[in-house]
């Protein structure tokens, strides 16, 4: 059976709610102090991390780390900023 990301998050919440309604006060306080991160947060975090990594790799392969002045050849900078027409 396939579960959606949000269904998974609901499951986690349901489990947390169930554990917090437990008759044992000690168990309840332990659970409340360490809430679990929902599954969808982990999935979203991984996707965002992969996207950031892709952008960083592109930056590194461009040999610039985001600095245009370093990454662009001098003649291109002259064209772009110096007003030289070809």
């Amino acid at each position: 059976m396939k579960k959606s990301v949000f269904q998974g998050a609901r499951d986690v919440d349901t489990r947390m709610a169930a554990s917090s309604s437990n008759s044992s006060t000690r168990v309840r306080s332990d659970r409340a102090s360490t809430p679990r991160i929902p599954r969808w947060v982990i999935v979203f975090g991984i996707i965002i991390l992969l996207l950031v990594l892709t952008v960083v790799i592109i930056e590194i392969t461009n040999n610039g780390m985001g600095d245009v002045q370093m990454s662009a050849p001098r003649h291109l900078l002259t064209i772009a900023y110096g007003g030289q027409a070809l």
Partner: protein
Amino acid sequence: MNMTPGLRKVALTVHVIISVGWLGAVAGFLALALVGMTSQDPQLVRASYLAMKLIAWFVIVPFAFVSLGSGLVSSLGTKWGLFRYYWVLLKLVVTTSATFLLLVHTQSIDMLAGIAARTSVLGAYPFGMQLKMVVTSGATLVVLIMLTGLAVYKPRGMTWYGQRKQDKQRQGSAAVDAATDQAQEIVQNGAHTAIFK
């Protein structure tokens, strides 16, 4: 610090319009970046990079800041808060990062537009920079679609800070309830004593 329902709706409307507008502008930017990288028509490539600069400075950058600001107002002025729910926190972190990334890349956009303004030679554009425009705008588009989904679905999940706040509120309301019950009991006992005197 809760806003009135009218003000809350105004803030939310502004936030939705600006955020979806930002997404649309990034989609347009990606289309132009793809044309700029793949087209063999020098005039089309020039037009694309010149248009990209205008879209970036006059639509994407202002929309990113207004989206961030209106999101802050909407979250701080409602029960959602800024750090209480994972979906709000994730939106805040990603929007801030995307705005920062955008500002970093405006230099590259300016440079490509500068080349386009002065030459029509296709080989003058650095391929790495063209690729960077496509990849970053594509990644931003994916992230903005995810954020829109988060805002619509509002998936459950409270942060540690949010749970602590909720517990405090519950304790506060429980103390108020107990005090009210005690006061009612005293009043009832007083009335009972007065009747039987």
